[in-house]
């Protein structure tokens, strides 16, 4: 899957820019809002009764960052613990991950920490991990303090934002922050972003590189 040939489409407006493709995976306990975050980011929609995800769903979205066009290939996974065995199939080879928890539920934060640990241990060593405290619109029912999550994120070198798929708060921002942090050339540094084996190519003259999907 990683070395398939994919056609990078040039979105409107991005004429001269470089096109960069990244695989991003969403992880987290079920019903924390993973699919809702993706739906908000990709289609600008929100469904109150978003159906549960079985297996995984796939969506793409492109964002423009200065002169670079970043195309996210987003794998939205099933949250139920039982589907855990499928997860490696999706985070394998991913350059970015958003680990989501629900700020009104302490257990989901615990589960998010386990996901972070698993990613740090088993995923691509350069993976950019973002922590998203979702359902910020329900802040009056908050069970996970902002400071607590921020401290945890700092300790582990994660991007962190509280988001709300319902109000769209910080949804685009967290994806943009990831896009910024993702190494777009080999000089990029930063936690988990040495950019090894990743190459960025101008426009469509893509040279295929085995083992990653940046083209």
């Amino acid at each position: 899957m990683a070395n398939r040939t994919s056609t990078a489409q040039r979105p409107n407006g991005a004429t001269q820019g470089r096109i960069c493709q990244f695989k991003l995976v969403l992880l987290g306990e079920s019903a924390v809002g993973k699919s809702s975050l993706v739906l908000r980011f990709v289609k600008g929609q929100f469904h109150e009764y978003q159906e549960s995800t079985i297996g995984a769903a796939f969506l793409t979205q492109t964002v423009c960052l200065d002169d670079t066009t970043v195309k996210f290939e987003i794998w939205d996974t099933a949250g139920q613990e039982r589907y855990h065995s499928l997860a490696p199939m999706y985070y394998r080879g991913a350059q970015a991950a958003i680990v989501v928890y629900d700020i009104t539920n302490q257990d989901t934060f615990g589960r998010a920490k386990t996901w972070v640990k698993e990613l740090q241990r088993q995923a691509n060593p350069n993976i950019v991990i973002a922590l998203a405290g979702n359902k910020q619109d329900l802040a009056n029912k908050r069970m996970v303090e902002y400071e607590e999550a921020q401290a945890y994120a700092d300790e582990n070198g994660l991007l962190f934002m509280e988001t709300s798929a319902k109000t769209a708060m910080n949804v685009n921002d967290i994806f943009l922050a990831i896009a910024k942090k993702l190494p777009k050339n080999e000089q990029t540094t930063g936690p988990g972003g040495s950019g090894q084996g990743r190459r960025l190519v101008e426009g469509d003259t893509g040279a295929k590189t085995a083992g990653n999907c940046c083209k």
Partner: protein
Amino acid sequence: MGELQQNLTQYCFSETSRMLLQHREMQFGAITFFAKEHKGETCGSNGLPLTPNSIIIFGRAQLLKTIKHPYLCEYLDIIRGKHERTIVVSQYCGEPLSHYLAKNELSIEDIKRIAHQILLGLNELHDRNIVHRNLSTDNVLLQENKDVKLFNYGLFYMTDHGKLVSFPILKTLYAAPEVYLDGLNNLSNSKADMWSLGIILTELVLDKPLWNTLKLSQCIRKILSLMHGTTSIFERIIREHNCYEKYQLLPPDLKQLIEDCLNILPKNRPTTKQLLERDIFKEFQNGKTNSKNKIYQTFDTFTLKELYYWWQLAGGDVFLELKKQGLIRSSPPVLSLPNMILIEGAVLGQERNPATLYEPRIVQMPLDTLYQRFAHIPLSSYYPLIHSKSEIIEKFEPPSYDASDLPLVIREKDPEYQFHRTILFRRLLHGYPFTRNRIIKEAQVDIPPLLRGEIWAALLNIANNYEKEYVEIDKQTSTITDRQIEVDIPRCHQYNELLSSGVGHQKLKRILKAWICKNSQYVYWQGLDSLTAPFLYLNFNNEAKAFACLSAFIPKYLHNFFLKDNSVIIQEYLAKFSQLIAFHDPVLANHLQNINFVPELFAIPWFLTMFSHVFPLHKIFHLWDKLLLGDSSFPLHVGLSILTQLRDTLLNSGFNECILLFSDLPEVDIEQCVCQSLETYNSTPKSITSRSHQNAENASELHITGITVQELNREKCSRISANDVVNLVRNFPHKIVIIDIRNPLQFSRCCVKGSVNIPCSSVTFGDANLDSFGVHSGLLKNAQNKIIIIVGTEETDLELFPKFLLQCNIPKVCVLHGGFNVLLPITPTVLITQNQI
């Protein structure tokens, strides 16, 4: 003469069928009201929007539909309109008791009978913990035979004791004093109904409405004033109305009965049971016991629910009728704007829409269109023959309405066709389980939507002890799975009113918990909720049956899918799916293979939930109608037919486009999908899709064993069992091409009848080009939909050859499992030896 007789018979027939159809009790009417709107906060504690009160009412009211009692009007339907409007359709026949007052029409004997029947009706309600609360002479309907039917008895129940509406549920004069004193949202108990009964009986014995000149407030004051004083309330009412002579003439037992009902203290009023045991009703009790002694229960040719359903199909529209009668009026939205809205959402200066008050009017639904439409249907159609041994009788049977050429959606909307189908299935279901084979046969034609739940249960072979089994299962004890179930239920088919109602959530949860508890070897996988939803929807008032259906469905189609570790089962299933695609559509299979678009990425939710997670309910129904008639391989064919429908798009797309297509599954034409699934299902040898993990009970033909998932994934073409090959050779030799890939020497010694020898060594597997087969290339090019069976031995390469054919886009290639040698012992033989050549 003969003609005259025939005409006469026909006349009698149509007269009787007219009487059947136009039975006096086969009538219905509707009332309408508004549910209370949520004020202020719109989200519940879980962040989800609050369930609209009309949906809660909708869910609660379903139970009322199950009540069938001779003295209660049957509830038929609940319809939700805009702005929390709720319409309740129920049986409505006869005249309100109030119409009989002051006409001197009812004798004391009649009144006793009425009292008895009201009590029987109330008793049925009170047994179900339903309080009428609204009992008055307006909603006690008297039939022509002077039998009684209580009407609108469910309003208090469905509105959760009046909490879900903004008007009080009571009839001023008839409401018991405690109803006023406790506040309007109190949990009135059944004793309030006894008071109302007392008032009704008082009116009947006096033969006049009480205090009919008083205004509303005076009326309430009057009732409350009754609490003062210690003398008999009944007597005081009598005196106020100057009817003491009548009072003195009353039989003492009736007097006592009314007296007891009109007791100020609810606890001192008798219960329905106590009253029914009194001597006053002794004379009515004989008839009741008689009917119970019958050996078998007679059944209705059709029910009121069915009549209502046909009426709707014939163009009947409750909403429209209510509009015609002025019960539903639309006013310009600008008139309902408030003067001010505070930022917190509080609304000020909004005039209350008078329609949100209680509207007591009832609109009788006109049935003439239906009568006209069904006028020509002969009596015999009401009693279709199910078993007939004589051909003459069978010929006499008039051909039932023929609509078989019409598309399914049209047939489902055709009142006359549905009439015949419902009548037939109703009869067959009464004979279940003995009529199961006939039910299956008829279900192959189609399934009438109204009886789908019952027919599915019959197809799934549900035994009749399912209720007991369900009752005994622990559905309450909390388990670790609860959190998961709780977060999944509010996301499961929530566009549906039933499943999004509170009652729907509770029921779904109980069924899921029961299933987990009953099947300790399995665990809850997300998706089980979606799988349960169709059964719950169809058996909403019969949880036990929904559970029984689920419990029968899973072993049949999803054996071991819900094991804690189900990866092997799913992998095998998906590998088989890939092989099936290759078998029928090599071009598509090769394309998907090339772009690495494997079923693991998109088909897990399809098969794990039998498509119930990816389709809306109305599509699932049509799909499962056919699924239930097939075996566990049918879903694979459904999967294939979905891919076939999207074939052009898939062939022109790369990986990303393909997977995006499935993330948001485009509109699938389900009828086409079902037809195509049936076609491939019937044209595929069973062993092509056989799995080692399918339920052993229905795998008697299984002759392929011992294949690992790794092998399966490697083999791009499916194996076929010797059993199937022998069957094909013997019965359908024109449908197959057998290619023997052993060396010519072995082939000439002994081979399968009609087989062609293309030794493996003679082919150069270079480019995917059929010309590599030399003289035989023509044979393969012209195989046209024949099944190509590769026969080899252990020494020959059984993977390369079929794989090459697949790459050449040759369909229906399969490999004989076990190789040539498995055919040796089979008798009578399908082989020929050298001598015979």
